[in-house]
């Protein structure tokens, strides 16, 4: 499976009607052979319609489950439809679709299971607010320590996943799979992770969805989840049909 891998682009979207259409079109222009699924995370605006008109498959959650659960819904879709690679792209237009190829080749050519886009591996002019940067540093260094592999950016939502990773995310239902802890779970299951530098643009429109309270709780939640994951048995990659 080198050239003809079936690729699914997973775009989680929550009230992104103003951006999602443009993102879907951009992705389709850049990679016409791939399927695009927009997971509407219980939006109250026209996100689903806009995405559908732009040519995406729409999976609409009945209520808001949060960014990561939306991504995972996309993985369930990928798993059941037997896609080889699932690529997560944000709906707000921060990711550059022309970089999708760079995320795919480590999976198809080098046998990696997860390829993580990093904003900090190379300096490409992305500016992070101070406190967020501290948080990201903390997550990245703890994750690196646990995995025994250097990880510089655990919160970037531009990633690609091979079949084994898709199966892990689709079939284990645990709230701890988000972001960094998800990487730890996958790493402990023996999956191979690679980081590559990506460019992250400013948002096209709208505002980021991270609230102050969430930003404050996040680090504690992260450490607690990490401890919980390390205390449990390692997961193994589920096999067979969905």
């Amino acid at each position, binding site marked *: 499976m080198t050239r003809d891998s079936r690729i699914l682009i997973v775009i989680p979207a929550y009230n992104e009607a103003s951006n999602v259409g443009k993102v879907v079109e951009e992705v389709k222009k850049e990679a016409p052979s791939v399927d695009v699924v927009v*997971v509407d995370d219980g939006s109250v605006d026209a996100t689903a319609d806009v995405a559908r008109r732009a040519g995406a*498959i*729409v*999976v*609409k*959650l*009945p*209520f808001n*489950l949060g960014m990561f*659960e939306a991504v*995972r*819904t996309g993985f*369930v*879709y990928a798993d*059941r439809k037997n896609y080889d690679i699932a690529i997560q792209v944000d709906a707000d237009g921060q990711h550059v679709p022309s970089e999708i190829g760079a995320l795919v080749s480590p999976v198809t050519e080098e046998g990696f299971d997860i390829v993580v886009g990093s904003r900090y591996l190379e300096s490409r002019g992305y500016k992070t607010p101070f406190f967020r940067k501290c948080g990201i540093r903390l997550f990245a260094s703890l994750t690196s320590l646990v995995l025994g592999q250097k990880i510089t950016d655990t919160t970037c939502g531009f990633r690609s996943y091979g079949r084994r990773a898709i199966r892990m995310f689709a079939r284990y*239902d645990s*709230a701890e799979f988000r972001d960094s802890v998800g990487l730890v779970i996958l790493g402990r299951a023996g999956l191979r992770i690679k980081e590559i530098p990506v460019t992250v643009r400013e948002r096209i429109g709208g505002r980021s969805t991270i609230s102050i309270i969430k930003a404050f709780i996040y680090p504690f939640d992260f450490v607690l989840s990490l401890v919980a994951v390390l205390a449990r048995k390692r997961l193994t990659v589920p096999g067979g049909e969905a």
Partner: protein
Amino acid sequence: MITPRVERFAIVISILLILVVLDMVRRRRLRERYSLVWLFAVVAMTALVVWERLLLSITSLIGATDPSSTLFLFGILFALMILLHLSNKVSDFSTQLRILAKEVAMLNAQLFEVRRGQSTRQEGNPGKDAGPGSERSKEAKEGRQ
């Protein structure tokens, strides 16, 4: 100290609670399993009030000075146990709800695909919506009985 007056009061409260719990079970507002926990709690508390020797020996066993604090301790422990049990249930439910929500989303997407396939094959048959709202409320009613 537990005076006869307190004892009478406790017994009245216990009987009321037992009646309320049994009535809730009768009206299917409370599952039998949960009612057992509540009934056990009420009976245990009443036993502590009525059987003074037991209360006094437990009080000296745990090192409390006043028997009434033993009663409070057990009351609070009991409430905590039930709360913990409920938190556990809520965690289970939220996991189940998440799985169900995803499943609904997947089914909807599949339904959309199937319908689109149908409408491209035979125009003029838009596939009437069965009205999921009415269906759902009917099921909910049946579930209550």
